[in-house]
Structure formats: C-alpha cells, structure tokens
C-alpha cells in the first residue's frame, strides 16, 4: 500500500509537470493536433493513474525485503557502472573495462584478488580482440594507443 501511494503521488506530480511542458509545446487543435497534444494527453493519464494508485492501493503487493540486503555491494556495483561511463573515453576501453571487471569481481563479488585480476585482464583482452579487432567496433583507445575498429 505504501509503495502504491508513493508511486501514485510521484505519478500525479510528474504528470502535472509533464502536462505543463507538453502544453507549452503547442497543443494545436482537434483537427490538427500539435506536437504537444499526444504528450499532454499521456501526462494527464499518468496523473489519473497516480490518483488511482493513491486512492485504491493494492494491499497484497509488498516489496520483498531480503533478510540480509547487501547494500554496500549494491552501491559499489552501481557506482562502478556510473564510473565506467566517465572513464571509458579518457582511459580507453581496455583499461576502463579491466578496472570495471576487477572491482566487480573482487569487491562486489568477493572473489580472490589474483583470480579477479586474471579474469579481468582476460575478459578485457578477449572482448577487445573480438569486438575491437575482429568486429571492428570503434572502441575508445584512451591511454593505450591500440586503435580498434579501423
């Protein structure tokens, strides 16, 4: 019930904001709907469904809370994903992927550091060979001057 109500309030508020910006895009008229007409209708429906969730929440659906949630690991995994986006271009595919794999294997998945390093190097190298050199995907070279995809 709590989740439904929170989601409902979010949907009402989000729907109103989206409806406002859609209206500004130009509604047009019923004969010739403008670019904002369809998003405006959708935004209104989002708000309506939000109201439905707030006033008629489903009592039977409860989020499943794990007995021992691994919040630290989860946050680290998510942080690594965002970090990867920002280091991919400057460091290049090989180094960024090696770091991503090592952090995921060693710190998120608690695997031994030697095995993690070996798997990370192997994973980054093989994927680089297959995608960069064989399938010619233009992977960012970064600090290692091996140009893939050419």
């Amino acid at each position: 019930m709590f989740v439904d109500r929170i989601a409902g309030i979010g949907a009402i508020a989000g729907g109103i904001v989206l409806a406002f910006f859609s209206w500004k895009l130009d509604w047009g008229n019923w004969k010739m709907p403008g670019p904002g007409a369809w998003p405006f209708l959708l935004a209104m429906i989002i708000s309506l469904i939000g109201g439905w969730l707030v006033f008629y929440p489903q009592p039977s659906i409860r989020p499943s809370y794990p007995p021992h949630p691994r919040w630290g690991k989860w946050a680290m995994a998510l942080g690594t994903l965002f970090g990867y986006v920002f280091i991919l271009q400057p460091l290049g595919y090989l180094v960024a992927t090696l770091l991503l794999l090592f952090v995921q294997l060693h710190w998120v998945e608690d695997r031994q550091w030697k095995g993690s390093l070996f798997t990370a190097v192997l994973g980054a190298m093989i994927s680089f060979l297959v995608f960069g050199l064989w399938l010619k995907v233009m992977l960012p070279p970064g600090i290692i001057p091996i140009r893939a995809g050419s």
Partner: protein
Amino acid sequence: MPGIFEPLLNGFAIAMTPGNFLAGFLGVLIGTVIGILPGLGPTASIALLLPATIGMSPLSGIIMLAGIYYGAMYGGSTTSILVNIPGEAASVVTCIDGYQMAKQGRAGPALGISAFGSFIGGTFGVAAIMLISPLLAEAALKFGPPERFGLFFFAFTLIGYLAGKSMARGLLMGVLGLFLGAIGTDDIHGVDRFTLGTLYLRDGIGLVPLAMGLFGLGEILYNIEQREKEVSVMATPKDLLPTRKDWRKSAWPIGRGTLLGLVIGILPGGMPAVSSLISYAVEKRVAKNPEEFGKGAIEGVAGPETANNAATAGGFVPLLTLGIPTNSVLALLLAALMLHGVTPGPLLLFKYPEVFWGVIASMYIGNIILLILNLPLIGLFVQILKVPYSLLSPLIIMFVLLGAYALNNSVTDVLVTVLFGLLGYIIKRYHFEPAPLVLAFVLGPMMETSFRQSLIMSPAGSIAIFFSRPISGTLLAIAILVLFLPLIRRRLKANFQTAG
C-alpha cells in the same frame, strides 16, 4: 491448402541455405544457454545481439533472434528442474513439480517430458502461425488509421491488464513507456519534444539501451542486493526418456497446454509466463489427484512447458500480420525487422514472402534442432550451470555495456543503459512490471501517428471517428470494458458480501 504448401516449401529452401541454417542453429543454441543461465533473459540477450545482426541479411538476422527466443523457452526448464531457479520467467511454475521430481531421482523424465512437450507445443504453434496469419493479414489490409489506433489501444489495455498483479501499476508502466516513446523530434512538425536541449535525444531514446538496461543491468543489480549464497547443482541425470506411464499422464496436459498456449500467445500481453501459469492452474484443477501437485506431478511439468512454447510461437501471429508485439522480446524483434528495412504488418506476407515463410520454416527446423540438442547435451548444460554466478555477473555487465557502446560508438548510449538499469532495479524491487513499458515504448510512435492521422481525416477534428467505425468502435469498447473490470469486480464483490 495449396496456397500454403508452395510458399512453405520455398521457405524451407530459403531456411536451409547454409547461412540461414547456421543463423538458426546459433540462435537456438545461444537461446538454450541463455535460458539455462539465470540473470540474462531473452529480452536482454536479443537487445545485446541485435546490433551484431546488422551485418547479416535481414532474414538470417531475424531467424537468429527468433531462435534465441524460443531456444530460451526450452533452456529455461533445465534450471527450474535441476536447481529450483527459473532460467527465465516462463519456467517459474516448472520449479514446483520439476524440482520435486529431481529430488526424487526423476530429473531425467522431467527434463525429457519438458523437451518433448516444448517440441510439440512449439511445432503446433508454428503450424498455427502458418494457418492463421494469411487470414488475419487479409483482414488487416482493410484497416485505416482509426482501426489501427483502436487495435493499438486494445493491445495496450490488455498488456496492462495481464502484465502483473495490479492493473494500475501495469498501466502506469505502459503510459510511461508511451511517453518515453514520444521523446525526440516530432515527425509532423519537426519540433523537439523533451530532448533537454541535447542532440542525442533528438532521435529519441534507443530501444536497445532501454531494454538492456531494464532487463539486463536491472536484473543484475537486483541479484547483487538479494544474493545470499551460490546454488548447488544436481548431478547429470541419466535415463532422460519418460516411461509409458509418464506419457499416459502427460498426453492430455500436453494437448491442453498446446491449445491454451496458442490462444494466450496470440493475445496482446499474453506472455509465455502467463500461459504456463494458467496451464498449471488448469492441470491442477482437472487432475484426478490434485494433491500430488507440488510433490512431483509430471503433469505440472508437461502442461506449462508445452504452453509456454506454444505461446512463444503464437506471439508471432500478431507480430507478423498486424505489426503488434505481444511481449517485450517480440517488441525487440519488431525493432530488428524495422532495422533491417522490413516493416511487419499485413503487407509483410505479400511484400516480403521470403522473410515470412523463411522464418516459419526456420522455426520448424529450430524446434527439431532443439529436441536433438536438448537431450544429448544435458550433461554440458549441467556443467554450464556450475559456473558460479559471481563470475558470470561481471562478465554479463561487461557485455551489456559493450553492446550498448557498439550500437553507435556512443558513451551516451552506455549512460542511458546504466540509467535504465537503475530504473529496472527499482521496477523489479518494488514489483512493478517492465514489460508493458518496453511494449508501449515500441507501440507509442505508431499509436500517436494513427491517432493524429485519424483526427486529421475526421470531418471536424472529432474523436467520434474512433467510435463511429465498427472495427475501431468495437475494439475501443472492449478496451474500455477491460479498463473498468477492476471496478466492476469490486462492486460485484461488495454486492455479494452485502447479500451475505
């Protein structure tokens, strides 16, 4: 019938060419492995491999992607039976009796009947596509924009209704998907909509980053938070062939599962997972000894496994003839077809008969390959299951991010994938359904176009055009009835309670 056999034979000739046969073989093999491995379902896998098919011919690409889909349905049962963890959603119910059979030393017959049931359901499903599609395509040719809008609206409502436990949640996800589909440059007026001033969003959000994020990264983030320990896998089972008694018990469930799966598969929102759940409920209800269910009843494996494969095939009918995907995997197949310049819909059968009949023939061949692969290779699949998830999940993450980048050589695509990964985690964590979002995201632009075209062609810009035409009027009336079903049910329940 002569109108079917000749093109079907041509289809077989096309599907048996080395390139197409190899594509089909690789597709079903990859699909089976994906079905076996928990954590990477068919939606994320097809999203991942979609860019790789760009270099292929359209037919080979579609044959491979379709093979992954129905291959995953076959493979999903293996983990359910041997580890008690479903490889993908459609095999959830197989865990109940399949795992119990395995604990009693009958993993072999459980896997065997599941493979045979899948083969029968899949093969009859393909036969149904072949028989129904031409008739449906003929009828759909008469559809104008209002009828198309009515059909999309009907599909959308049914998807919301069937998607999960709460219709409001399903519809919210669906409308969110429609809205996300509206982001980008408006086709008619050329105006940017919700692009936040970025060049990237002018082309709209990509389906592949969205699907890989929601289904791939979302699932992995969820598993990282929830995981307690690695699972133990049973030894490779021997004697895979079901006994005569097993066959006697399974014959009717397989028959009923085929019919049920087909009907549900054709309906929008009728995902294979829904068909297997309903099949299990039906089998339990009609069983002579329902108390055996949950304790290792073979009927509880045969029915659902047949139904999910029949539903998988059934879903191709609306996809190929109306251009309407009934679940998220088919939404990606629709995107793949369009990426290859093939527009699914009533004209597909007439404009690209080689694609239609080639895919049909490849599905017959694929089902036979799967039956041959599944039983002898079970030992290999058990070994794959022994690869620890803690090793697999970082590698899956790497492939998802690499796939996202490879699409357009764009880091922004990677960022979008990660953002949708976070959304996918939240959706899964709080029991919302990602499938309506993806389906609506794909249907959205087509739905908007038919909505606006209908209003332009109406005499005074009136929405009465949707209700004044018989087909669109009927479809909209049914959709509105579906929308009010929860309210009607609540009222009826209250009335019954008042009446004592």
